[in-house]
């Protein structure tokens, strides 16, 4: 589904990504982790073209992301993305947040879009808030709405960029529960996160990045059992204290 081949990105003399390659097959859940500054957010943003890259190739469902002829908006409408800072549109109600792209990008009727939106809100447990504004919701609630917003587009894959890093601890679980549910339904997911508990539960593979390179790319059992690289071991030992 998602194929990243030898991707490199640099700013002048500063290399952000160096020769990164990985795959996410349909239905697979891949967790990307690593210390800050390792380039993991940049990598995931390259997958839907929010960040450009100078070298390499990325294809999603057979469509090349870096190709100038690709219809990027159309491709992006098929890939859902959830951001660290939720990024709900503050001047719109929750419902409108969910229906805007359905109507304007997918061309669905407003009735149909609203119904779909409300159903998804029920699924993430927030149907009662459909007419509220994002500013009136807590962080955890906003992030769940953000996930619903992405799902409303019926994506073939979902990208998560540190979805729980900006949340207070007591709200992390409500968001992770939604994500676990998604994974169990067979959604193709690429998740940048520090939440190793989540990785242990539903990830199929774990990719470890450091300083712009993919250092390790292993099945979950292998990664947590006996990681091969020293840097990965260091990282794990530091964060597995919770």
């Amino acid at each position, binding site marked *: 589904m998602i194929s990243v081949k030898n991707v490199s990105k640099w700013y002048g003399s500063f290399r952000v990504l160096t020769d990164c390659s990985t795959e996410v097959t349909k239905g697979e859940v891949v967790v990307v982790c690593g210390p800050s500054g390792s380039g993991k957010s940049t990598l995931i943003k390259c997958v839907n073209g929010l960040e450009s890259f100078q070298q390499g190739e990325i294809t999603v469902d057979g469509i090349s992301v870096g190709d100038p002829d690709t219809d990027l908006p159309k491709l992006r409408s098929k890939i859902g993305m959830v*951001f660290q800072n939720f*990024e709900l549109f503050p001047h719109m109600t929750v419902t409108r947040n969910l229906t805007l792209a359905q109507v*304007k*990008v997918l061309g669905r009727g407003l009735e149909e879009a609203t119904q779909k939106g409300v159903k998804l809100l029920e699924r993430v447990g927030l149907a009662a808030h459909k007419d509220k504004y994002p*500013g009136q919701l807590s962080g955890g609630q906003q992030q769940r709405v953000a996930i619903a917003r992405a799902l409303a587009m019926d994506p073939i894959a979902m990208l998560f960029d540190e979805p729980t890093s900006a949340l207070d601890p007591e709200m992390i679980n409500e968001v992770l529960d939604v994500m676990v549910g998604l994974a169990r339904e067979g959604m193709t997911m690429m998740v940048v996160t520090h939440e190793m508990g989540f990785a242990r539960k539903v990830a199929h593979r774990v990719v470890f990045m450091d300083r712009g390179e993919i250092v390790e790319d292993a099945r979950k059992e292998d990664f947590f059992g006996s990681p091969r690289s020293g840097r990965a071991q260091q990282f794990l030992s530091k964060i597995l204290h919770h």
Partner: protein
Amino acid sequence: MLAAGLQWTLIVAALAWIAAFVLGSVIGVARTTDRAWLVRLGNGYVELFRNIPLIVQFFVWFFVVPGVIPPVKRWVVSVDPLTFQLVTSVVCLGLFTAARLAEQVRAGIQSLARGQRDAGYALGLSQVQTYRYVLLPMAYRIIIPPLTSELMNLIKNTAVAYSIGLTELFFRTREMGEMTFRYFEAFGAATVIYAAIAFASNRLMALLERRVAVPGYIGAHK
């Protein structure tokens, strides 16, 4: 008599504001795109209209443009002086204020977190759609305070149209003073009127700000 002048002041200000708002928005947006030539063009426009005094701009539109562009001169000669003064004032003040508004719009859009733009694109919205539905609605709310002061500046700047003979409020004030020799009364009245207009526009914009406020946010921050 002052009332007639006030009427022209308000008409010129209203027309110039509409023109300036539209043009300023376009240029402001252009300066936030990633097309270098658009940004440069927008910046050039702002620099041009910000670095020449308003009265000099009035003179350029009133004297220089008809002087070097024959079709304009022909038009000028064919209409009555008031129309010429009116059009010149609206064009001059409109373009001048547009440069200042472009600056505000640009700052407003750029103050929004990059994430909002990313979120719009990630949903598959095109650049135009992202600006229209995501960025501009919030940017305009953010810049209501500086927009208010630009509106007040525009109203004050209509007085400079006095230099090309437009019979707006300041012109009438001076005329009244010269005719009646009651300068203090004339200028006093004008002062009160201008202050009142300033106060009224301030209140109007504050009302607008309250009406479009996004629940849960003060300005644009939680």
